[in-house]
């Protein structure tokens, strides 16, 4: 306690109790203003030779800037963009960009260097002006309000005032009604629960939209699939594709473990699963033909196609939904129905 700083004192009571670890220290004399540090003179302030040097350096940067700006204009001419030649675009972008950068940076670096090394460098103190107005201007403001009230009769003519307030409240009503229409007019939850797949819709190749025959899917194949008719959709093609995208794979039948209720959902080892990850909806299409694992590129969720796309790694919460498929009388693969559960990530109404 002997080396206690002179400007502080212990809180009363705590000094008697040596076991008390919480010794609060309160300033008793207040902080003293240390004032401004002594002025620091730069080499350019002391040595005229250094000053001259700094001057030349700044002029060099400004000259460099001129070279850069002129160079950028020249580069645009010297390296023209030739249609169809990507190398020319690369050179044009690179040289115009490099020279323009030198042009801009030269001005900036020169200006900052000028300010730091040559411009008047003395420190000075400038007081803030007070926030509160003078007594005269304050009373003048009050007087203006009082006079306006008297002349208009805003508080006296209460009928006028109240109807005005009512009118102001009613003004935004049409805007509310109009802007409300910007929200979807249909139930988005319903849209999330259904896709373009339906009974008898043929499985078609992405992007061509050509239907796929079961005989074309050899063992080890992976087809990127869209519903037939999606490629011809005029509206909402991307939205529909984002829900209906399917990956079609053919596994050796003995490597496919099928639960009893899904026995009719595949055809000769050909299985179709939603490509939309159940985590946040990335397309899961990294298919390892030998291990039958599907990998999501975004967050490394892995699904085992052999076991109905169960999650074997990563943040996905549910297996990928399976599309029940069969073949029609022409041998084309068709859907038996829509997906039996919503595809893609969880949403509020899904609660899982």
């Amino acid at each position, binding site marked *: 306690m002997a080396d206690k700083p002179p400007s502080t004192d212990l809180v009363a009571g705590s000094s008697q109790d040596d076991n008390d670890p919480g010794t609060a220290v309160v300033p008793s004399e207040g902080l003293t203003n240390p004032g401004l540090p002594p002025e620091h003179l730069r080499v350019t302030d002391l040595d005229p030779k250094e000053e001259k040097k700094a001057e030349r350096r700044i002029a060099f940067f400004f000259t460099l800037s001129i070279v850069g700006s002129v160079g950028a204009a020249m580069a645009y001419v010297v390296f023209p963009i030739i249609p169809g030649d*990507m190398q020319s*675009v690369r050179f044009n*972008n690179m040289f115009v960009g490099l020279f323009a950068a030198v042009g801009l940076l030269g001005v900036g670096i020169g200006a900052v260097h000028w300010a730091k*090394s040559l411009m008047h460098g003395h420190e000075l103190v400038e007081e803030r002006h007070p926030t509160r107005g003078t007594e005269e201007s304050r009373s003048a403001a009050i007087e203006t309000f009082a006079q306006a009230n008297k002349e208009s009769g805003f508080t006296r003519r209460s009928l006028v005032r109240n109807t005005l307030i009512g009118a102001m409240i009613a003004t935004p009503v049409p805007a509310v009604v109009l802007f409300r229409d910007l929200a979807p007019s249909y139930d988005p939850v319903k849209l999330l629960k259904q896709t373009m797949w339906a009974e008898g819709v043929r499985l078609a190749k992405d992007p061509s939209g050509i239907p796929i025959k079961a*005989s*074309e899917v050899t063992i080890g194949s*992976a087809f990127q699939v869209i519903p037939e008719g999606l490629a011809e959709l005029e509206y909402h093609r991307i939205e529909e594709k984002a829900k209906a995208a399917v990956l079609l794979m053919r596994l050796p039948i003995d490597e496919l473990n099928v639960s009893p209720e899904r026995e009719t959902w595949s055809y000769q080892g050909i299985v179709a699963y939603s490509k939309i990850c159940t985590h946040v909806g990335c397309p899961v299409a990294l298919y390892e033909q030998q291990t039958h694992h599907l990998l999501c590129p975004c967050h490394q969720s892995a699904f085992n196609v052999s076991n109905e796309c169960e999650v074997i790694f990563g943040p996905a919460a549910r297996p990928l939904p399976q599309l029940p498929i069969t073949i029609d009388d022409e041998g084309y693969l068709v859907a038996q129905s829509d997906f039996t559960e919503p595809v893609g990530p969880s949403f509020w109404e899904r609660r899982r």
Partner: protein
Amino acid sequence: MTSSKANRRSGRRHPMMGVLLLVIGLFATGGVYAATSAGIAHADTPPESTLALVDEGERLFMANCASCHGLNGEGAQSGPTVIGVGALSVDFQVGTGRMPMAASGPQAAKKPAQFTQPQIDALGAWVASLAPGPGLPDPAYYAADGDVANGAELFRVNCAMCHNVAGAGGALTEGKYAPHLRDLEPIHVYGAMVTGPQSMPVFNDMNLSPEEKNDVISYLNYMDENPSVGGFSLGSLGPVSEGLFIWIIGLGGLIAVAIWLTARSN
């Protein structure tokens, strides 16, 4: 053989034509020999008949492949069967150096080919003689003269998820990976699509027609020949390399400028 045939035909033409063709033929034979015999002690000139080719292939298989794939190519504990994989699969696996494998691991890596093209063709002929499988395609289907835009779309739909949209490759599970697709032999790209080597799915001719495969090859060829217009591509790896660059070089540069701006001038 080539030169003698040319000689016989040249009788009805200019007398010097035969000499010229003979010289060309000798150069060609010598060139092929010099190119194919490098590094291989027992390289012969290409076998003349298919039967000889098959025999040569069988000898090569016995000497180099049978320890893993079985004496009759039926497969063993350390290697799968080669019956029915076809000449195209052999061309891809051996031509890219993936076979013979240097060591067993999650994935056979690409490395300099250990066999010459005639030897690979012989191996392929023997494997094809075991059972039918995908054969070598018509060169017109990997000439890389197809529709680049269509190839790019097909690549984005079917290949980009594993191989990266710029063909830079990417990681798979448990040490496996999709290799990069830069500067490849077109026939190897074609072979990979048809045969689906290792983890890669099969893209048979009903999925991607031979013309569409040529389009994909054209797209890869276009990517090889045309640089990125946006300056440094940083390996085209996307947010990882670009993020690393901007966090270290970009933010580091901004911090350096901020320190310089506020530092007291000397």
